């Protein structure tokens, strides 16, 4: 079975962007705070449009927010 890992830097980026709260990020990305919590803790993999929205909120490329690690690729 292929091992997939999607990690993210949302927590670090929030603090680097004026200690942005989860609620503020949620409002900017157009999702609920629960979803941001789930993404941040790696429990939920966001859709591509949402991932782009989050990246644009921080003003960084998507690779700076989400990292995909796959042993086979």
């Amino acid at each position, binding site marked *: 079975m292929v091992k997939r890992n999607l990690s993210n830097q949302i927590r670090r980026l929030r603090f680097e962007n004026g200690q942005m709260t*989860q609620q503020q990020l*949620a*409002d900017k990305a*157009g*999702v*609920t*705070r*629960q*979803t941001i*919590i*789930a993404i*941040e*803790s790696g*429990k*939920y993999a*966001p*859709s591509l449009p*949402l991932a782009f929205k989050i990246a644009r909120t921080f003003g960084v490329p998507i690779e700076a927010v989400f990292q995909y690690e796959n042993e086979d690729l």
Partner: protein
Amino acid sequence: MNRVQKMSLTIVITFSLGIFLGIILILMRFFDVGIPKIVFLFPVFIAGSGGIISITCFKKDKGTIIFDERDKLIEKNANLAGFGAVYLYVILMSFLPIGILGEEGSIPVTWCPVLLIGAGFCQAFAQSIAILIQYGRRDKNGEKKFK
């Protein structure tokens, strides 16, 4: 906890209580304790009250965004779980009377609507459990409640 979680939790608690009471009443009847038939409506009333409470008591969540793609996915998976549960319920209810009463047995036709209500309860119960499992056990601050 959002509104859907609160509703699901209420349904799971009241339905579980209804099922528990129902089992006790069936056991009491099995051992000839002597209880009137009308008492059997009590667990149904308790289970049904969960649905009514969940619809009427919980107001809409505050905030500009109350529903997003994750909620949509959870809702979709919960609907699938509910459908699967009803499917299993129908299979069970199709064969259970044969197993209990035998091939020559018969049941009153008045049981048919009861089975339909049971399917509704089964769907709501499975859907609520699926919703609670998918949202996980987290409090307002996003931290796990139990370690």
